[in-house]
């Protein structure tokens, strides 16, 4: 086979690049959201319930500034704060306690994943495929870490909490009920980005394998 007949590396590199870009975008995107609804958070006034959003760069307020002709409001309700206030009644840890090392490490981890993908684009030595695996497993890794933390929150209730609630596993995906609150927990578009990036890199990996075999 001549040099010209060799299969091109361009498609897999492009896919990897795309995966990297999408991952970078996902870093700044909402990955998962949780919302609480209760009688005293009427939907007309709290269309989002008490909603918080999990991102790699921290837990963000998921409550929007409400559109009302009747009242003047210049900042949305801080629902991270509101959720902490609600949770303290059952002795739950404040949100800031959760995943703090992961959040602190996230920029480096993402940078690391990026560097590995870069290397993946050019390195073809032994175990070359290992360089692509982290990017592929980011979504699964997120769900695993998220679930772990939810378990931790539901099982380390302080006995000093005013309301005694049996330890429980908060819902990871879907709807649940805790005391008077209906809880909602669903992936946001950032999780979609993670999945797309994951598939892009997986596809790149397969292309690369094919290309290397043909070489």
């Amino acid at each position, binding site marked *: 086979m001549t040099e010209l007949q060799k299969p091109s590396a361009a498609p897999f590199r492009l896919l990897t690049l795309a995966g990297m870009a999408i991952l970078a975008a996902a870093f700044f995107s909402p990955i998962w959201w949780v919302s609480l609804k209760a009688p005293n958070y009427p939907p007309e006034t709290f269309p989002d319930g008490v909603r918080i959003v999990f991102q790699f760069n921290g837990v963000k307020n998921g409550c929007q500034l409400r559109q009302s002709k009747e009242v003047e409001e210049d900042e949305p309700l801080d629902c991270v704060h509101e959720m902490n206030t609600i949770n303290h009644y059952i002795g739950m840890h404040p949100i800031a306690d959760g995943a703090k090392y992961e959040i602190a490490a996230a920029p480096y981890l993402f940078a690391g994943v990026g560097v590995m993908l870069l290397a993946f684009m050019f390195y073809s030595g032994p175990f070359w495929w290992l360089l692509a695996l982290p990017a592929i497993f980011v979504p699964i890794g997120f769900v695993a870490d998220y679930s772990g933390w939810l378990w931790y929150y539901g099982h380390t209730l302080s006995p*000093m909490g005013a309301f005694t609630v049996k330890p429980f596993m908060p819902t990871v995906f879907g709807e649940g009920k805790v005391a008077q609150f209906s809880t909602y927990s669903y992936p946001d578009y950032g999780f979609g980005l993670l999945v797309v990036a994951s598939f892009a890199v997986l596809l790149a990996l397969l292309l690369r394998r094919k290309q290397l075999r043909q070489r």
Partner: protein
Amino acid sequence: MRLELSRTTAIATILALSGAFANSASAAESLQDVMKRRNLSEKDMLAAAKTYTPSGGRDEFLTFSSSGHAGSIIVYGIPSMRIYKYIAVFTPEPWQGYGFDDESKALLKAGSPQGQTINWGDTHHPNLSKTNGDYDGQWLFINDKSTPRIAVISLKDFETRQIVVNPVLTNEHGGAFVTNNTEYVMEASQLPSPLGHKYAPLDKFNDEFRGGITYWKFNKDAGKIEQENSFTLELPPYSQDLVSSGKGPSEDWAFLNSFCSERYVGGIESGKPPFEAGCSANDTDFMHIINWKKAEAVFKAGKFTKINGMAVIPLKTVIDEGLVYLVPEPKSPHGVDVSPDGKFVIVGGKLDSHGSVFDFAKMKAQIDAKKFVGKDAYGFPILDMKESLHTQVALGLGPLHNQYDSKPCVVYTSLYVDSQIVKWDYCQGKVLDKIAIQYNVGHLLTMGGDTMHPDGHYLVALNKLSIDRFNPVGPLHPQNHQLIDISGDKMELLYDLPIGLGEPHQAVAIRADKLKPTIRYKYGTDSRTEEESKFAVRPGSEKIVRTPGKVEVFGTVIRSHYNPEIVEAEEGDQVTFHWTNSERAEDETHGFAISQNDVNLSLEPGKTASATIEHAKAGVYPYYCTEFCSALHLEMEGYLMVRPKGSAIEKASTNVGTVYTKADFDKQYKACLDTQSVIDKVVAYITSTNFKDFPTAVGQVEDATDQLKFGTEARAKADDYAKKEDWQNATLWAGQWWQYQVKAADIGLRTKTYLEQNGARTVK
């Protein structure tokens, strides 16, 4: 004639306007049109029909609601939910002159600790006086949580009559609850402190800090709390909460909740968990079962010590004499409410989702048999919780307070966390119905719901939050009182009342026909004491008394003048006004405001009130009437003239105002005679009927006769001056005569209309 004319003009104007908007203002709207335009459902219309009270209509019940830290009481009607009045209690309120006249200032000062005046209170629980466990419509009591105090309000004139300061407690929540015959008003502490307003360090909390419940002796005839006949039971330093008097079989007992029996002392600033955490750690707290009848005997036997002037039965005596027993109750409870028959006590769980129904007979049996499961840290005997309970019912989240229905075994409980009212059967122990309210209900209210014979029919949810239920009025939101129809099997929401003052806690409602307030005071009454004021004077005997450094005015007010109208004083004088309203006509209140001074009097018919200006500064101070009392209201005015120190009173010159001649006098006099003939005709008509059968007419005739009497006096003066050919004074007094005539004629005509409309007969 003029009235006719103006009416015609008005109609013509309306017609012209409606012509211009011919499309919109066609025929009157039908009910369906209105429903469509206002987007009202059939259900809304039914609720409207159940609450709407047509002009002049009356309510079935009157509600007395606390206004929380606004320090007053709000009076509103049910089912109309119209607010009638705010009764000033701990907080000054100028409309009623409360805290702005000398009399009420003295009352507020006497009702404040250590010689200061506290000008607010945190009112929580209004309660009505009872006879045999039912409201007697005489007295109303309310507590101040912040500075433990009890106020007595007379339902004769809806005015605060007395405030007593608790000399031993520093914070309370369990007031002002009355025993079954209002023998005592109970006031139980909340945050423990050393008794008697003393200091002790917090590390001696268990030994030096105490709770307590004061039994204030109430003299129902005098309407006075008697501190010398009152006593306090020393209690452990738990946070005692609400208290409820027994009824019937449990009449001699009272039931007092507590929380924080952990005796936890917080200190978040030094790294300790806060009070809210430490105070809700245990699964149970203690309900205190108090034998107050026995406590009264112990007090009368002299087994007490005096602390700060209050008789206190010490902890050890309380235990030894068997005055208080404890029974565990679900932790951090709130409401404790005795059933109408006095057999059960229902405790709301607050942090527990159950309503716990304690059986008095079961508890009494354990007490009688001295069968206890243990003692608390102080030696109080503890009853067995299981053996004391009749039943426990899962109600929902945050059950707080309980109110009873007229139907047997039916009780309503507020669910704070769930924002619901639950209706349940406490005999059978089952939930009957639930209704959502908006939002976070605290207390709830049924008609006569804490008496031995509740009236049923309506319930009001006293909601803490209104969030988005009303037109926005800024960050501080009104609370939301929601009227609910409980006459059927299902509860029906009828009406939302925004509370525009304060943060009501509890409210009580009484059948309107049990109240019979007065419409005027006996002549010369100090309304704050309901006694005759020594400062009252009759028309004709007004005077200004001058002593060195002091000017004291004894005056009268009537439509529409003050007497005296000009008061002279010297710089630095203490000037006191004592005004008596000599009106007898209903709703003829006058005010008295004087420029640049913190004075406003409310002078209802017959009332005497005073205002003192301590060190008058030189200047001219107009005073005037603040109540729009008549067509000549704006002319109801006067001057306090404070001349600079040492200057002499200038003699009034004659070139002031208009000069009147004989012609002016004759014209005025003729007008008076013409008016008199009209009055005579009306009088002839009235006296030709059986008007004496109509109390309203009789009252009006009395008022009119009063006015005519004043008129006759003014006429005599006019005649007198005319004889002396002093046309100036003769004209002015003839004018005054005419003023009285106009008032008399007005009342007479109203009486005539009333008699005609109410089918008065002609009699000989």
